[in-house]
């Protein structure tokens, strides 16, 4: 059981990161901490992909001195996916941060629950 | 093709003309509304007559899902109900012309009144269960504005009660229908039932549950215990012609639906002797007795009549539950008899309210001197409802009793006629006091102040026609009985 974990320690760390991020995003009240959680979560995923994409002893898929056997290279797609994912997560983070700024300007707090109570009071 | 179009016209014309009346703001003037409604009612009547006089016909409109078509088909059973419904509808409609003056908002009233006829025509013409269910819901929704017409809080609450009871019943029936669909070849109405016995084998308990759900569900509309409470609440608040329609006709929609379910879907043989039949018989007998008792205790005139409807409708349901041709003939006769009589009673009550504003039975002292024609008609139809020959009620109750005795079902064979008899006595007990108080107010009554205040011709004539009809049905029942027994024999 633990042998598997130790052999794939990269993946294990990735899953741990994902879980930490997930918990923060779900449970934190502070918006900034939530956004941090979001980034943890995404980073965990990218680490997982990068770990999966790397095979010990193979080269980067860039042809330098003549084409060798297919088995000499790693698959470039996971790295490509990581890049795409980073772009997506950057844009999402930017959106979240801009929302946070707006909310802070209006209510001078970063706590979601407090904002909700203020809103309820406004309605009455 | 032409034949089939007549069915469609009979349904669509009332609905469309009603919708036009509701939407055209220009028809705001009372006179214009009445003229429009009168013409529309005339044309609708002619169209329905045209549909009734033709042969049996069928028209496939479209498919709802791949195996559920929407079919219109007018067989003899449908014709019988449709004829009664439209007759009562027209007479109550004529009565509403003057009556609605004191309720106001004629445009809305007549708009929905016309739409209600379309829904009833559709119900009579429905050729399969889903079509019938659609029109059943449509009828509930179309008649709902009639109940809440004066829009007082009380009326709205009563209307909601009516709506929820009816919808609840219809949904119960709908869930029965889902089960039924699996075990039939078709959901069209075929005399003798459409159950596929091979599929049904081994699933009898599920099917009986479905039958029970459907029967009880549709009987909500017919006011069967334990879901009868909407009737006495909804009737007093509705305008009198609307309660006449509700009590005379709309409750019959439930009866028609139950007949369709039992004789045209499950088949009488499948239900005979099972717990479903016993449950159905017991519930209907309880309702017969309970309705009469409650009517006996009630002082409000319209509410008393409403309880009377609860009781009388269960006569009809009991006749159906017995599952034999004689009792079914009695039931169908009673459908006609009760429709005519109860409509007349409500119209009489309406005329009294319109002229004097009296709503309780105790207030009716000496009314016979003021409105002799109305109270005479009330008396004649009361005798009919009690079942004294030669009125219509006698014949139908005779058939019901004979049917019960012939059925040979242990217990109910004798219990049925006894309950019917006791209930007839109670009926006398709650209807005749009106006549007695009306004509014999007692020695301390001051005759000096009474003046004649008979209602106008447009209100009296429908009442007189209905009273005459109730007697005519009793005196010359043979044509009807022949017509009915010709097709009830094929059902079992």
């Amino acid at each position: 059981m633990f042998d598997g974990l130790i052999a794939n320690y990269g993946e294990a760390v990735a899953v741990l990161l994902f879980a930490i991020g997930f918990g923060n995003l779900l449970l934190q009240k502070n918006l900034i901490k939530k956004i941090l959680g979001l980034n943890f979560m995404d980073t965990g995923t990218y680490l997982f992909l990068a770990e999966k994409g790397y095979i010990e002893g193979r080269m980067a898929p860039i042809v330098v001195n003549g084409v060798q056997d297919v088995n000499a290279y790693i698959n470039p797609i996971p790295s490509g996916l990581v890049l795409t994912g980073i772009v997506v997560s950057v844009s999402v983070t930017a959106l979240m941060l801009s929302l946070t700024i707006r909310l802070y300007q209006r209510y001078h707090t970063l706590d979601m629950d407090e904002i909700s109570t203020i809103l309820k009071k406004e309605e009455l | 093709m032409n034949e089939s179009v007549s069915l469609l016209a009979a349904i669509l014309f009332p609905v469309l003309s009603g919708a036009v009346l509701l939407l055209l703001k220009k028809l705001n003037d009372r006179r214009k509304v009445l003229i429009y409604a009168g013409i529309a009612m005339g044309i609708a009547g002619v169209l329905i007559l045209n549909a009734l006089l033709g042969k049996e016909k069928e028209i496939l409109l479209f498919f709802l899902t791949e195996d559920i078509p929407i079919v219109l088909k007018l067989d003899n059973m449908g014709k019988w109900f449709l004829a009664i419904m439209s007759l009562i509808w027209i007479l109550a409609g004529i009565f509403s012309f003057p009556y609605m003056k004191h309720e106001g908002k004629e445009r809305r009233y007549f708009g929905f009144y016309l739409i209600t006829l379309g829904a009833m025509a559709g119900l009579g013409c429905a050729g399969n269960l889903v079509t019938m269910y659609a029109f059943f819901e449509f009828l509930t929704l179309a008649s709902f504005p009639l109940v809440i017409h004066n829009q007082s809080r009380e009326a709205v609450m009563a209307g909601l009660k009516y709506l929820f009871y009816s919808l609840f019943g219809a949904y119960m029936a709908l869930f029965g229908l889902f089960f039924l669909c699996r075990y039939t070849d078709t959901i069209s109405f075929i005399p003798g039932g459409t159950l596929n016995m091979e599929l049904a084998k081994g699933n009898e308990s599920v099917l009986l549950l479905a039958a029970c759900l459907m029967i009880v569900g549709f009987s909500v509309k017919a006011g069967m215990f334990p879901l009868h409470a909407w009737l006495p609440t909804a009737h007093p608040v509705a305008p009198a012609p609307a309660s006449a329609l509700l009590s005379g006709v709309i409750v019959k929609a439930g009866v028609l639906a139950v007949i369709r379910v039992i004789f045209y879907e499950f088949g009488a043989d499948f239900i005979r002797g099972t717990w479903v039949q016993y449950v159905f018989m017991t519930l209907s007998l309880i309702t017969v007795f309970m309705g009469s008792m409650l009517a006996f205790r009630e002082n409000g005139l319209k509410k008393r009549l409403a309880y009377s409807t609860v009781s009388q409708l269960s006569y009809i349901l009991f006749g159906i539950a017995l599952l034999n041709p004689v009792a079914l003939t009695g039931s169908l006769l009673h459908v006609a008899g009760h429709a005519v009589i109860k409509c007349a009673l409500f119209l009489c009550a309406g005329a009294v309210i319109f002229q004097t504003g009296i709503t309780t039975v105790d207030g009716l002292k000496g009314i016979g001197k003021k409105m002799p024609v109305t109270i005479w008609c009330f008396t004649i139809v009361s005798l009919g409802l009690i079942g004294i020959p030669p009125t219509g009620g006698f014949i139908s109750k005779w058939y019901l009793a004979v049917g019960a005795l012939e059925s040979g079902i242990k217990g109910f064979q004798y219990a049925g006629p006894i309950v019917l008899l006791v209930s007839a006595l109670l009926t006398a007990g709650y209807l005749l006091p009106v006549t007695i108080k009306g004509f014999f107010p007692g020695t301390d009554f001051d005759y000096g102040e009474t003046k004649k205040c008979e209602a106008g011709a447009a209100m009296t004539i429908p009442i007189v026609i209905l009273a005459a009809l109730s007697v005519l049905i009793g005196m010359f029942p043979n044509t009807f009985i022949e017509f009915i027994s010709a097709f009830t024999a094929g059902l079992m």
Partner: protein
Amino acid sequence: MEFLRNFPCFSLILTMCASIVSSGMNGKWARRLNIVVIVAVGLLSSAALYLTVTTNQCYVYKMGRFPAPWGNEIRFGVLETLMALFFSIIMLLSVLGGRKHLFEELDPFKENLYYVLVNLLMSSLLALIYTNDLFTAYVFVEINTISACGLIMIRESGHTLEAATRYMIMSLIGSGLLLFGLCILYGITGHLLMSNIKEQVALLVATDQYHIPLVVAIVFIVVGLAVKSALFPFHSWLPDSYGYSTASSAAILSSLVSKGYIFLLIKVFYRVIGFEIITESKILNVLFVFGLCGMIFGSLSAIKENDIRRMIAFSSVAQIGYIYMGFGLRTEAGIIASVFHIFSHAASKSMLFISAVGLTDVSGKSKKFLDLTGAGYRNVIAGITFTVGALSMVGVPLFPGFISKILFARAGVSVPLNRMLPTLICLAVSTILNTVYFMKTVLRIYTPVKTDYINIKWKENLCCGIVCIFFIILNIALGMYSEPIVELISRGIAMFA
């Protein structure tokens, strides 16, 4: 004829280009361009639908030059094109129906941005419908989320900002799970194209390899998409974001955005994992239970609600519960019923939102029930439209809601008793609850009131009125002629395999 197969790709590119182009336009031209583009997408999709129906096969369209296991693909059959056509119709009607409010509620400088977002949303929905590549699906899920968030927050008020934040947080949780599930699936199969993954998954199951990672991947993907489509316990963001955003946004969000994710989920069931493997796993039971809970609790919350828009929003929670219940039946009939419910709910719910706004407009902009008294007389067409929508939601025959109930119930009676009884009981209970709150509302808007409000003139409200009429026609058509649509759905699902 062969040329028609390019059309789905065209419609994708068209919407994306339009959203870029309209960012440089002023509001008026952006609006016109948006309408032209949506109509064009509708026409293109109907042409593609015609192609797939007549030839009765599905087409794979290579994006880029590389063939199958490496390149990216879009793939379309009957169901995909039907869905695209339907989405474009609803989109058009929703945008037009809320146009008056857009003028009132938006900053004039921002009006073109609204249409940028609408075009972007449309393109991401089309991509979700057509794509054959899971990672592309993920990217467009995120684009969908971002543009939907924009649609909520573009009307800048405290409520919409808060709602948008809540929406974003829930969506990000969902897409995080989805992405992680995808990565695991990619790790064990080595493919991103749906058809290839399915082959590999079948192989893995047959040889009994990687059992746990496969289950974990399925769970992550399904739960992620369920969270994003507001399945019952994850619906907390929904009432606020539907209740306070501008009318068009609410209609679009409720009827299209969540449906896009559900459609992707169906594709995952059939095209990625394989329906047999999904039905054997326990995940559908979880969806079933949550779906049933959603049906009941959504309706209960709607009954308690005192705000018409939020009430309709809670009703959406219940309706999404219906869809997941259909998945939980684990039969093809259940899926067909769910897909039909996507159509019927989209048609009715967008109609309800548009007409509810028509009603609140004539009641001093108040959404409270008490102020809505008699609104049906003041704005006749909106009143009628709302009534039709309510009847459809309640499940009165001849409206689409009834057909979906029939389909659900008939799918329900053909499964074993332990799932049949909960299905039928919850259907019955939720139908009655629906009746309670929708009839209450209809009655409220038709109760006459003495106080003077301004009656709305037909001419002032022409656009909204015409849209309402089209909505009514669409609903009645769906309710009365559902047979060909159900047939197309079942053909489309057969093509998925």
